[in-house]
């Protein structure tokens, strides 16, 4: 099993605040890795460092062995896609168009071919459309392709964000709290979806607060507390670790949920 992502000593400082502090993390291909931690631990900031939205103050990120430049477009092209904690869809575009935007880095039709519309352009557009529809089917939005994205249900919007990310043919998918605000049933459906994504050969790094989700899905879990990685290991071990319990609850206690 090869290492897909390797983050080495990633540090992010905002003025005096160290939001992410020398975090090392690896994700192997075929893995689902969980990233947990209390609010404000720096999980989202760490994602932003991985995807080039932030330039890490220190440290480096390698993907498939190659150093990742901190430029979102290059990161996406290299094969890392993400979703956002607060849904960020292209609300005014149709559901299908959203997914087609996800194909951006995998197509290269420029101005002239858009004007000329030769056979190659038409083939690429058709392909983008087909891939888009297939992905919508995959996340369970098959019947909604022509709707405007903002008219989807909350759960539908989350799934559309995943489909849009998958459209860039990623090797690694970063999910930032994919079940936030979902009811238990939607959460179970998302679990199945993440499993199915792994079965497509896409590794997943997921931030989540729902412990059942983490226990059911993850091969490995890393815990981030106040910017640094506290522990890392199998979900059951991590859950039982007294340091983790303390980080969440402040004092030695019983079960977290």
């Amino acid at each position, binding site marked *: 099993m090869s290492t897909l992502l390797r983050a080495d000593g990633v540090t992010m400082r905002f003025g005096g605040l160290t939001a992410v502090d020398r975090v090392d993390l690896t994700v192997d291909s075929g893995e689902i890795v969980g990233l947990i931690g209390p609010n404000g631990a720096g999980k989202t900031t760490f994602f932003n460092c991985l995807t080039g939205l932030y330039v890490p103050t220190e440290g480096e990120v390698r993907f498939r062995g190659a150093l990742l430049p901190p430029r979102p*477009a290059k990161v996406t092209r290299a094969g890392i896609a993400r979703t956002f904690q607060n849904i*960020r*869809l*292209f609300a*005014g575009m149709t559901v299908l168009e959203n997914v*087609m935007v996800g194909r*951006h880095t995998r197509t290269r039709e420029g*101005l002239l071919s*858009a004007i000329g519309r030769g056979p190659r352009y038409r083939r690429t557009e058709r392909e983008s459309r087909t891939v888009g529809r297939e992905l919508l089917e995959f996340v369970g939005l098959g019947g909604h392709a022509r709707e405007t994205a903002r008219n989807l249900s909350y759960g539908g919007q989350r799934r559309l964000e995943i489909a849009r990310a998958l459209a860039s043919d990623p090797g690694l998918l970063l999910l930032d709290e994919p079940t936030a605000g979902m009811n238990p049933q939607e959460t179970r459906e998302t679990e199945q979806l993440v499993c199915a994504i792994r079965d497509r050969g896409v590794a997943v790094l997921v931030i989540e607060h729902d412990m059942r989700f983490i226990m059911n899905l993850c091969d490995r879990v890393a815990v981030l507390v106040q910017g640094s990685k506290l522990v890392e290991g199998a979900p059951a071990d991590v859950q039982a670790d007294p340091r983790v319990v303390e980080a969440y609850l402040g004092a030695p206690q019983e079960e977290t949920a």
Partner: protein
Amino acid sequence: MNKHLTAAGAALALISPFLAWTWTPLYPGDLTLYGYPGGSQLVTLVCALTATALLAAPRLAPAGAVRALRAASLAALTTTWVTVVAIAVDLGGVVNLEPGAWLAAGSTALLAVGAHRLPDDTLDPPRPVPRLPRWAEVLVITAVFVLAMYVLTYGITTGSPEEFLAFLPAALFLGRALTVSGLGAALGALTARNRTATAVAALAAALVFPFTQSDGQYTAIADNILIFAAVALGLNIVVGLVGLLDLGYVAFLGTGAYTAALVSGSSFSTLDIGPLPFWATALLGMAVSLVAGIVIGAPTLRLHGDYLAIVTLGFGEIFRITVNNLDGSSGPSLTNGPNGINSVPDINVLGFDFGAEHHILGVEFGRFANYYLLLLAVIALVVFLYSRVGDSRIGRAWIALREDEKAATAMGIEGFRFKLLAFAMGASLAGLAGTVMAHLQTNAVPDNYKFADTAPPNSAFLLAAVVLGGMGTVSGPLVGAALLYLIPAKFEFFSKYQMMLFGLALVVMMIYRPEGLIPDRKRQLEFHEEAVTT
């Protein structure tokens, strides 16, 4: 009961245009005849006919007829009352009103009251519209464009402010009737199914216009509208698709115009070039504007929102001030300063002199009609480029940047590059329009390219045309440009208050219809479903 009231109002309103409204032909349009509707009576007649049709055959309106009927009744009411009041004011008193005018005023009021008391029958979703065979669809599209062109022609050729004032509210309210009846959406679907036919029909309808004009007076107005519209459509790429507020866009029109003037062979030109053939001038104008777009865009497009607006406003003014100073005394000699470059000769394409009269199909084509044809080609090109690029990978990237820049960046879209592309493309289209403008107006002077002025094109009016018409659509800026050109041109006597009225109109518009007259289907939701959270 209300139905009868409405029907009675409609019937009387139908009769009234056939009566005399005043006793003297002094009022524009001659409203003194019995049995023959003239001038603004025609507008009342059309409004009353629309209302009658909606009343008699409500199934015509897929989304429910009553709201459309109300809009039509308001059209009849406003246009009739404008005319009646104008007669009284113009001729000095209500004694100048004949019984026909009283009947018209009363019946349209009756119609409006009745229509507004009918119960709402809005259908959501609308009734499905039956699919027609293809030839019939094409026929419908053609008819619609001919009708639209007729309405526009009527507006352009109104000979007096009174007639235009009676035309305007009728056109707006009937447009509203078209929208709320659901026919607008049905037409939209129809044109979307027959893109090529739509383009051909639109072009054909527009081509008819110069054949209906005997002198150049109104064709000149149409020319100016077309230039204004072409530039507004270019600006729509930047504002409507990418969502960048550009307040200095007119500078690119100016760049194109100055480029064309400099190489036109005019004796005022400081360059000893030319006259170049027009295709070369056009390409050169586009190229220079494109470079200007990149030069201005490269340092500014990293800014966001208000900052970008302010900086582009500054660059727009810098352009005007620069051409004002490149006069050989306060700067290098290039543009003759405030005097500009005059005596730009007419375009000559392969021996076809745009300044001379030609006979085509037995119809005399004067100078303005020649330019009209050229400008139609320019508009067709701009629309073609706009819709092709707008509906492509690039267009999707633009709209994605507008909708959520951070998410777009995360999807791998290089924001700066695509914004610069939009900026450059918009600039070069404006430059193209500018090259024609220099020849049409026979000059290029700094004062034509201001930020704000009482007449278009200027940056404020261009932006207003896009916003008023409907951002991100093709027809929106065209309609917006036509309205914004015609209103100041027809109400010259208002000139003192023009800017104030203009501002007032924009404020009203932004309150009641922020998505513009012709809304982008998707945008409309954005403005009217604030409740949806993301």
